[in-house]
């Protein structure tokens, strides 16, 4: 029952809160102009080391990254020294499914990433506001043509086993991902790299085959593996015995029970305040909420039900970060299905659902309405002027009739050419957040003569069958552009994409997406992605419902938390600055 609550969402993500806006106003940080351009061109779909997560639910949630809106240059911040805190104590957080692996290549699911990020460092890393931060690199430089990146590495950094970190570790890490024999899950992030050089101990030069705008945010943030250890034990051996440069080192890993990391005294940024950081695995959402309430846990890595989130948000005894996801909550529809291939049917479905009421009643207002594939939180890319689908059941009925769908036998379900307007929507087994949503939509459809049957299946079955075109419809959250703040959606909307779950095929869309990746002028790019959104709203390849809010809740005894955050799950990267004060 892993399944119990793979609830809430897949991708947490960036959002805007008042605190965030404040922060943004003051975040005047120098960026590197030359290459800011690239970075802005294609933000990271997901953050590199933790690419993304997993499937709709199952498990995973990615840690998305998004550069602040409007910014075209990734700012680089140097880690601020933590204010004076107190040493000692153990912080306990809860996750909802087991930590299957501690290898950075498997760190997609938030529950994994929260621990992996304590153990490892990248040359640069993305912080909770999507700013790039120098970590193992002291500085970096990118050639004018965007084909060469040079990193200067920090001196005196030690791995947990006492070995000194140097450029060979970086070279080893990149080459490990690039080698197809290793079957790295995130291999695709490294596909544009030609070769990696380590001319001296403190320098790494990366040569690209072609310019790759998201390289910095996605690949350069990869957590560095120790050559002397990983080279010996390989991925499988490393997964249970990671040795990084992070502020905490592994103490005990009990995949399904808890994982504890403890302070690494020789960490290059200084010993963290906390003695230990533990993630406990608690599948029941209600039990996770109780643990927060009773003080058995200090934070919940995975969101609770809407009512709990809102209650903690109001409670002065908790610090709550509310961010907005860029993953759209949607019903993928098989566009090759005899019924669902009819655009009029898909558009009518949009009119048939009172989406705002679903948000207000079922999600207690903790989501924003979707108008196409991109979240309104992505201010610089969001296009509001698209075809709208207000709740209008009469309109939906009329559209269906015009398309030839009429209820001739009086059973309440429309037919056309002897085929019933009926299909099956398969939700994730035990998905407590989305199954009710599907049940509500089922009734909205029934009211206009559409019969949507419900079924349940494990995540692996759903993604595989959708990819194979063997499933009518499903319901989960997924990023269709917007991960890392970049609007590129080639991985999901392009006709040949592995994750084009709706089997949507539109040559114009393919053309737009291809142009969008190459285009470096932000203004022209914006036009391209505006058209993408208009096309999505016109074609309705899937029923886009809403973007969820993501809550990260901390008890008040945890001090040193950031002022604000755009990416909730990214917060846990900062645990080395936190301390406990009762």
């Amino acid at each position, binding site marked *: *029952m*892993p*399944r119990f609550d793979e609830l809430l969402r897949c*991708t947490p993500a960036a959002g805007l809160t008042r605190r965030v806006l404040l922060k943004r106003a003051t975040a005047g940080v120098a960026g590197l102009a030359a290459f800011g351009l690239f970075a802005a061109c294609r933000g990271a*779909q*997901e953050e590199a080391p933790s*690419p*993304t*997560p*997993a*499937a*709709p639910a199952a*498990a*995973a949630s*990615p840690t998305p990254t998004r550069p602040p809106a409007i910014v075209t240059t990734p700012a680089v911040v140097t880690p601020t020294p933590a204010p004076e805190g107190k040493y000692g104590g153990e912080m306990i957080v809860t996750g909802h*499914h*087991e930590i*299957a*692996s501690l290898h950075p290549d*498997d760190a*997609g699911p938030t529950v994994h990433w929260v621990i992996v990020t304590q153990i490892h460092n990248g040359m640069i890393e993305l912080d909770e506001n999507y700013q790039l931060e120098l970590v193992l690199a002291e500085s970096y430089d990118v050639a004018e043509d965007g084909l060469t990146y040079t990193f200067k590495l920090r001196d005196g950094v030690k791995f947990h086993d006492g070995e000194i970190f140097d450029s060979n570790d970086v070279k080893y890490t990149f080459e490990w991902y690039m080698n*197809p024999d290793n*079957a*790295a*899950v995130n*291999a*695709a*992030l490294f596909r544009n790299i030609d070769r990696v050089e380590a001319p001296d101990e403190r320098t790494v030069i990366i040569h690209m085959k072609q310019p790759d705008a998201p390289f910095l945010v996605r690949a350069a943030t990869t957590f560095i593996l120790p050559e002397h250890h990983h080279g010996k034990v390989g*991925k*499988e*051996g490393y*997964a*249970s015995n990671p040795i990084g440069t992070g502020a905490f080192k592994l103490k005990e890993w*009990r*995949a*399904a*029970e*808890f994982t504890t990391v403890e302070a690494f005294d020789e960490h290059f940024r200084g010993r963290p305040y906390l003695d230990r950081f533990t993630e*406990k695995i*608690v*599948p*029941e959402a209600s*039990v996770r909420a*109780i*643990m927060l*309430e*009773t003080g*058995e846990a200090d934070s919940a890595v995975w969101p609770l039900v809407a009512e709990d989130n809102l209650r903690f948000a109001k409670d002065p005894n908790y610090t709550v970060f509310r961010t907005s996801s860029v993953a759209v909550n949607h019903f993928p529809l098989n566009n090759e299905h005899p019924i669902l291939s009819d655009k009029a049917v898909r558009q009518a479905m949009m009119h048939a659902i009172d989406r705002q009421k679903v948000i207000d009643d079922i999600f207690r207002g903790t989501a924003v309405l979707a108008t196409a594939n991109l979240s309104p939180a992505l201010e610089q890319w969001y296009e509001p002027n698209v075809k709208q689908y207000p709740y209008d059941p009469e309109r939906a009925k009329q559209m269906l009739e015009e398309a030839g769908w009429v209820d001739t036998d009086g059973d309440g379900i429309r037919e056309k050419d002897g085929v019933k307007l009926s299909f099956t929507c398969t939700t994730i087994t035990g998905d407590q957040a989305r199954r009710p949503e599907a049940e509500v939509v089922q009734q909205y459809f029934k009211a206009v003569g559409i019969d949507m049957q419900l079924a349940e*299946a*494990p995540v*692996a*079955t*759903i*993604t*595989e069958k959708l990819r194979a075109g063997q499933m009518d419809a499903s319901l989960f959250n*997924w*990023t269709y552009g917007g991960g890392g703040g970049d609007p590129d959606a080639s*991985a999901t909307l392009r006709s040949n994409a*592995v*994750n084009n779950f709706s089997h949507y095929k539109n040559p114009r869309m393919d053309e737009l997406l291809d142009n969008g990746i190459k285009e470096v002028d932000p203004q022209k790019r914006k036009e391209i992605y505006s058209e993408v959104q208009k096309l999505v709203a016109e074609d309705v390849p899937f029923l886009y419902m809403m973007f969820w809010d993501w809550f990260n809740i901390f008890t008040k005894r945890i001090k040193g938390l950031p002022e604000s955050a755009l990416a909730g799950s990214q917060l846990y990267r900062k645990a080395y600055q936190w301390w406990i004060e009762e």
Partner: protein
Amino acid sequence: MFQYIVRRLLQGLIVIFLVTLATFGLMHLAPGSPVDIMIGEAEVSQQVIDAITKKWGLDRPWYEQYLVWLGNMLRGDFGQSMVRTGVPVSQMLLEAAPVTLKLNLYAFAVALVVAIPAGVLAAVRRYSLFDYSSMVGATLGVALPNFWIGLMLIIIFAQKLRWLPSGGSGSWQHYILPVAVLATEQMAVLARLTRGATIEVLHQDFVTTARAKGLSEVTVIFRHVVRNALLPVITIIGYRLAFILSGTIVVETVFAWPGLGRLFILSIDRLDYQVVQAIVFLLTILVVIGNLLTDLVYAYIDPRIRIQ
């Protein structure tokens, strides 16, 4: 006798072979693959999917994979979990099994202490108020869905009263709620069994004889009745060994205990073939041995049952 045991063991091997073969086949027939779980939401190309599939040998026909599994199995190698990247299955089992065993042992001890005396007393004082109330209590114990009662206990003792932790393991307090839930059911089953067995013994001739000899009622009960009544009870307990797993699946989930039950259902959900396979294999062995022992004990207790 020896020949009989050997024959039964051989039959057991066939059962194990068939059960594991069926599980393996069914798992592979089910749509989906662990690769989907492994890649999650990563932006992958078909090449990456193919590389992972090949690396784990999933591109080969399932019966071939079964033979590979069987071969490794015979060499004592349970294989590696695909989802929990590369961790040996044996290690996962060794971590999970003690959790489940501990929970069940404590629950069983509690159940035994309460249920046996209650069952005997109910049988001796049949149709008394005690008999009625304890049997209705036992019936209620069987009737309560264990996951439901688990949730209720958490709400009462962890959230409202805050006397006990809501989930996880660690201190002795962590044991109380899950043990209570498990014990409720076992207690109920045991008490009913004991009562039934005791009643049966009470009707036997030797009890009448013992009474006729003028032995006190207490002596009759303890010397003759209880001793004889417990044998079938114990046999049935042994026989239900394999049920430990199903009993704890939901309890382990509700209370976040990382035992075998949860590992099993998680692995089915994620199609982690090697792990499911290993658990089913061990379970089947338990079943086969349990069956054999039961028959042997029966034969020992009741010589009328000839072993054919």
